[in-house]
């Protein structure tokens, strides 16, 4: 007995040129993980994410990291006051915390965007998968 069944796929990508293969599997199943296509994608994701991390750390070093040197070279800054408090205490006891939070929040947004672009590439989408579910509120309180 043959029953006629109408098969409808979810219309995910109207213009899909090929079936949506999980290319990370292809990627992982390669010995050494050195499959040509996946390797290329992964290298680019790694480079993106590492570059992003490096930028945050360089920014941190250039801002917070320069504080001891600046005060070492110009100790008279210690006598400066903001709102009746020594400037070092205002910077390192107060303002530094919102600054760190801002850096962290921006990093998370960018890192998630990089991953969405990568996911879209691997799935074979061209672009529109990068927008959508995770359009990122940053996860901050």
């Amino acid at each position, binding site marked *: 007995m043959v029953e006629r069944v109408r098969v409808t796929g979810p219309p995910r990508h109207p213009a899909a040129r090929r079936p949506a293969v999980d290319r990370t599997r292809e990627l992982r199943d390669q*010995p050494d993980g050195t499959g040509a296509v996946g390797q290329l994608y992964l290298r680019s994701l790694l480079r993106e994410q590492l570059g992003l991390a490096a930028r*945050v750390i360089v920014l941190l070093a250039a801002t917070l990291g320069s504080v001891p040197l600046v005060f070492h070279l110009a100790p008279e800054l210690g006598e400066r006051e903001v709102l009746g408090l020594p400037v070092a205490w205002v910077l*390192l*006891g107060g303002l530094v915390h919102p600054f*760190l939070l801002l850096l962290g929040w921006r*990093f998370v947004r960018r890192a998630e965007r990089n991953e969405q672009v990568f996911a879209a590439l691997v799935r074979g989408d061209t672009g529109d998968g990068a927008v959508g579910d995770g359009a990122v509120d940053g996860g901050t*309180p």
Partner: protein
Amino acid sequence: MSAADAPGLVAVVLVTVVTLAIGAYGLRFSRTTSDFFVASRTVGPRLNASAIGGEYLSAASFLGIAGLLLVGGAPMLWYPVGWTAGYLVLLVLVAAPMRRSGAYTLPDFAEARLASRAVRSVCSLLVVGIGWLYLVPQFEGAGLTLRTAVGAPEWAGPLIVGAVVLANVTAGGMRSITFVQAFQYWLKLTALLVPAAVLVAVWWGDGRPGSGGGDAAWSVPVAPGGGAGLYATYSLIIGLFLGTMGLPHVVVRFYTNPDGRQARRTTVVVLALLGFFYLLPPIYAGLGRVYGEGIRSDVIVLELPRRMVEGVGGDVLTGLVTAGAFAAFLSTCSGLAVAIAGVLTQDVTSRVLGERRGGVAAFRVAAVVAVVVPLLGALAVRNVGVAQSVGLAFAVAASTFCPLLVLGIWWRGLTAPGALAGLAAGGVGSGTAALLTLAGYSPGGWPGAVLGQPAAWSVPLAFVVMIGVSRLTASRRPAHAGRFLVRLHTPETLRSADAG
């Protein structure tokens, strides 16, 4: 013991009872080994971030910082800044990949990445060593707090904290500890925030005495001593910024997130929680300069409320800060105990006890060992500064696990011999400096700075050795390194089923 001790006593008893009660509540959910180690990886960002904050803000943060700031002034501001910024560095370099590695502990990660039992064993040793280096001062601080608050003998604090931690950890493992620690973050924040607000109001009412006109040494954020002071400051910064990611109780928390994306978001919430908390200790230090004449600096937070507010109000505030301090010991000790016990279970007790007894029994035995050894250490050794000894634990972590994690996550060229050589160079270098400093050996000038703050040379040394030896042994790159990196950096949305 006298009437003046009553608020402290009430506070300690209350915190202990509530901690045990929440632990017992969490117990209802703890059944499997996975519950015990990583709360079955189901903890969302808000709860997890509160738990991380609760665990991370130790006695050094609650009591130590205000005292250090009071005595040392602006150079000591780097401690709270570094403890927060360390989380930012951890966020950008390791948070998400760490969670995606699917390992339970640091040694698990090392073994999975490098396929080497030897690296695993060295990492286990380091986790236990760093954990104990961190636990001893916590127990000591507990003794100091109980003596100050209720006049108890100095051995009482460590024993009580040890007993409560053991009860909670052996009963419910990570699952119950997560609830307990989340509660303790908010308790600690309240216990520091409310008295600070009252004390500032009192100070304002007194006509704001002492505002303006600090002396130069108190307001320049560089250690004194010219070039050596500048070196010591930078070395401290490097150790704190890079050491956070290597602390065993910090890293284990990342495995409790559901996925890598949540791990990142959790970390951002942690940055907010820590930043808010660290706004408070400088207030106590500033008020201590005005009102704290004759108070020992390391108990300034406990003594200041009673000094500034008379009568019942002072008693209530004293009870509150005592409760916060006690919560600080309990939560940090619990977190470290879980982390150390997790490693001991996998590498020692589950083998000794065998499969027959099951993972949970092995975990419980390991927890007893993890708590009792540093407890005895704290009873035997006295008078190591809490913040200093914690600072050295950071330096050792920064010189060992930081290079291992950063290179393991971002560089496929890392080999097992390279990792071993780097861990040895960084660990022996910073460890020797730490032990000499703890033993009281402190020459002046440059040698003192180099030994007292080893991170600035030991961290680069570990990186250079790890990279150099890995390059020399390039033929021994693990075959699966490429695949492993794929796993670490692939967003979960692309995975079909992750057994994790």
